[in-house]
């Protein structure tokens, strides 16, 4: 019954989405208020129906209903509950259902929360949002139905891929989708504004929180995925420039550009058409990401079962929405007149530079990602583009961005003087140079990467501190607590970027690796740490068999940690995984991996000292936190509150 209810609710949701796509749009064009107002209940109904459908699938997974094909293929009775739930989106069909659920969630949120949105604009936004929803609901219903039944229910399922049975990865996809799909709101606002032919400061103020939220979710999602790779894959890599990682990184870069350019529209009413274009592209790249993951055009093991029919369907959705929006853009962009004037050295100028750097870096990632495809199609050359290319092609843009960022963050609007901007940053500059000298002095081989990365990171962090202090003006530190949240958000996010810079560069430059055969009781030294393999034993887990080692780590004779790296085999999928043992410290992670038993005794053991590894994710967390702080700023809440009281005031007159 369950699965059928879910399927039926999904079909109803499709019908509601079609209604919501057509009726409010016509209503907005004709000025029929009944039709305009129908957008809100429709958006809420759509969310409710998809919610029922998603709940039905989740129940099937939790109760291990193996008569549902999808559950049989991706679950197992012995699996812990959390992974039964995360199994819902650990596959193509279920993850698409999560995708449309989040899409409807954003639509309903816009229907409920944005109380001060003009009814016509809201109707158009919700209509565009519903069009995206309808397209993806059709995609699910016609090519990827999650509710297919098996004639005979098997006794047990095939289990979820063991690599995915991990807390980091259980929540990686939902956050990523919240980010991808959150950008659909920016897209819907952009298309609605193009249809209305009006983009002003108010529009930017409405679109910015959605973009900010999407960016925060993308940041969390990407960071979770990279953290997972770090501890799960067994060698501590955290970013591989894999096509699918790039697919999430491009929208992140464009969303970052968009939320900066939206500030310029909000404050100064310039960069309007560029902001619209960015909103279209940011969501376009989210769709490209979906296409890459699900079509199998670019090979990556991130990809779900590759099915050409699905690929063509998504390509059609991509072409229709991005193509349609760009056509509309080319027809209407000319009518958007910029208002503000500003001199080249100004906040506006700095943000234009920010946008150029972010957009071009996203373009570099894009061209590197699709180049193998292009080269094969047009010139029949099979080639690969990987980390060495991206590191060289992408890094210069990040260096440039980091150099100008602290200056751009404090330069005044309209007209600034470079000298007056640099004066308060002298301390930050001095600090950065001191860090560079320190790193240069302690760095073996005087790695340029370490010196430049740590210097730029310190410059960003110190710049963020200066930014906050300048905001307090003459009233001193006491004002720090009363600064607008947007100021805090900006400083925290920019500082977080600096922390990540330091982590990435020092980890890559200073990592120490040791691979050897160790016998039980044997002690060896890696970068000053004495590591002893004490014991290795086999242990039975809930749905796996584990080989656990006990390894003692000491420095200068004093014990630092007792670590238990594991090697697991999941019998259902007959698949081994490594569970590295990591002891995280402020300045370094100890990272131990146990390998196979050797023929003539002993075990293969890998030991890594990973300096500043934790800073990468601490910085990412700061960036996300900064976004959240900014999102809670007064100007978004006040505007909403003011309108909420308006209807009450009305009848009293």
């Amino acid at each position, binding site marked *: 019954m369950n699965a059928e209810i879910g399927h039926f609710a999904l079909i109803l949701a499709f019908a509601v989405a079609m209604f919501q796509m057509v009726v409010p749009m016509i209503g907005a064009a004709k000025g029929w208020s009944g039709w305009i107002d129908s957008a809100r209940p429709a958006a809420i109904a759509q969310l409710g129906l998809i919610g029922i459908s998603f709940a039905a699938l989740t129940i099937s997974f939790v109760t291990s209903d193996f008569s549902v094909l999808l559950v049989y293929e991706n679950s197992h009775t012995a699996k812990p509950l959390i992974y039964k739930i995360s199994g819902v989106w650990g596959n193509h069909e279920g993850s698409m259902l999560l995708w449309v659920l989040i899409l409807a969630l954003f639509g309903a949120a816009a229907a409920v929360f944005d109380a001060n949105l003009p009814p016509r604009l809201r109707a158009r936004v919700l209509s565009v949002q519903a069009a995206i929803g309808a397209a993806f609901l059709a995609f699910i219903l016609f090519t990827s139905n999650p509710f297919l039944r098996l004639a005979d229910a098997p006794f047990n399922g095939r289990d979820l*891929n063991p*690599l*995915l049975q991990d807390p980091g990865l259980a929540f990686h996809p939902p956050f990523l989708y919240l980010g991808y799909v959150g950008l659909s709101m920016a897209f819907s606002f952009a298309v609605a504004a193009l249809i209305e032919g009006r983009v002003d400061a108010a529009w930017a103020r409405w679109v910015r929180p959605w973009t900010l939220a999407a960016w925060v979710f993308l940041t969390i999602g990407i960071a979770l*995925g*990279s953290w*997972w*790779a770090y501890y799960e*894959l*067994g*060698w501590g*890599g955290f970013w*591989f420039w*894999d*096509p699918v990682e790039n697919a999430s990184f491009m929208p992140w870069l464009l969303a970052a550009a968009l939320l900066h350019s939206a500030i310029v529209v909000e404050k100064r009413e*310039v960069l309007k058409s560029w902001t619209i274009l960015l909103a279209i592209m940011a969501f376009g790249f989210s769709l490209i990401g979906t296409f890459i993951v699900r079509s199998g055009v670019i*090979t*990556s*093991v*991130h990809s779900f079962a590759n099915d050409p029919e699905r690929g063509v369907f998504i390509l059609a959705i991509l072409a229709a929405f991005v193509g349609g929006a760009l056509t509309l853009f080319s027809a209407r962009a000319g009518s958007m007149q910029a208002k*503000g*004037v*500003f*001199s*080249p050295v100004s906040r*506006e*100028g700095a943000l234009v*530079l920010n*946008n*150029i*750097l972010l*957009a*071009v870096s996203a*373009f*570099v990632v894009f*061209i590197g990602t699709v*180049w193998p495809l292009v*080269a094969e199609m047009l010139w029949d*050359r*099979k*080639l*690969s*583009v*990987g*980390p*060495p*290319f991206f590191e060289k*092609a992408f890094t210069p843009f990040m260096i440039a961005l980091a150099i100008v960022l602290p200056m751009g963050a404090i330069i005044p609007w309209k*007209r600034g003087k470079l000298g007056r901007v640099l004066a308060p940053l002298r301390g930050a500059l001095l600090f950065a140079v001191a860090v560079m000298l320190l790193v240069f002095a302690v760095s073996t081989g005087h790695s340029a990467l370490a010196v430049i990365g740590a210097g730029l990171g310190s410059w960003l962090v110190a710049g963020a501190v200066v930014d906050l202090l300048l905001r307090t003006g003459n009233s001193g530190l006491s004002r720090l607590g009363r600064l607008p949240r947007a100021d805090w958000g900006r400083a925290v996010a920019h500082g977080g970027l600096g922390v990540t810079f330091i982590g990435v560069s020092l980890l890559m430059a200073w990592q120490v690796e040791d*691979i*050897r*055969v160790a016998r039980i009781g044997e002690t060896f030294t890696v970068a000053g740490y004495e590591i002893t393999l004490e014991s290795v034993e086999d242990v039975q887990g809930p749905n796996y068999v584990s080989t656990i080692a006990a390894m003692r780590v000491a420095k200068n004779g004093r014990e630092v940690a007792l670590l238990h790296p594991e090697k697991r085999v999941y019998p259902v999928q*007959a*698949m*081994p995984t*490594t569970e590295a043992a990591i002891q995280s410290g402020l300045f370094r992670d100890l990272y131990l991996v146990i*390998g*196979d038993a050797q023929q003539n005794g002993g075990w*293969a*053991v*890998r030991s890594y000292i990973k300096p500043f590894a934790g800073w990468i994710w601490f910085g990412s967390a700061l960036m996300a936190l900064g976004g959240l702080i900014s999102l809670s700023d007064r100007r978004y809440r006040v505007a909403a509150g003011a309108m909420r009281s308006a209807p009450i005031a009305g009848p009293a007159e």
Partner: protein
Amino acid sequence: MRYLILCLALLLAVPAWAVQPDEVLSDPALESRARDISRILRCPVCQGETIDESNAPISRDLRLYLRERLVAGDSNEQAVDAVVERFGEYVLFEPRARGINWVLYLAGPLMALLGLLIGWRFIRSRAEPETRPETLSEEERARLDRIMQD
């Protein structure tokens, strides 16, 4: 990040993890060169892993072959060439800047230049018009005088 899955799936019978202790050369300088090279070579049967990370038997063979060449006195370039000769340019994670690949390498810098150019023109177009002279012209002064007198 999940691209290990396929390689692992292919490898159920022989789970072996990336570089094995028995592969490591006794000369640290040679070994470090070998690691540098194996980080830019792609495992021919995996989904986008380097032979350094990969668990596929062919990656192990490649790592061993690479080390043989280095021990025999090859330079890094010669060793890489030898591998490319066998498996094609597909195994290079950094495509050689030759022929059409120049498009790949120049696309970023050219786009950056174009962006900066468009950005600069836009910024100039938004710049405030030349500030008017502070003092009044003779004609204006005369007119002002007339107005003041009225």
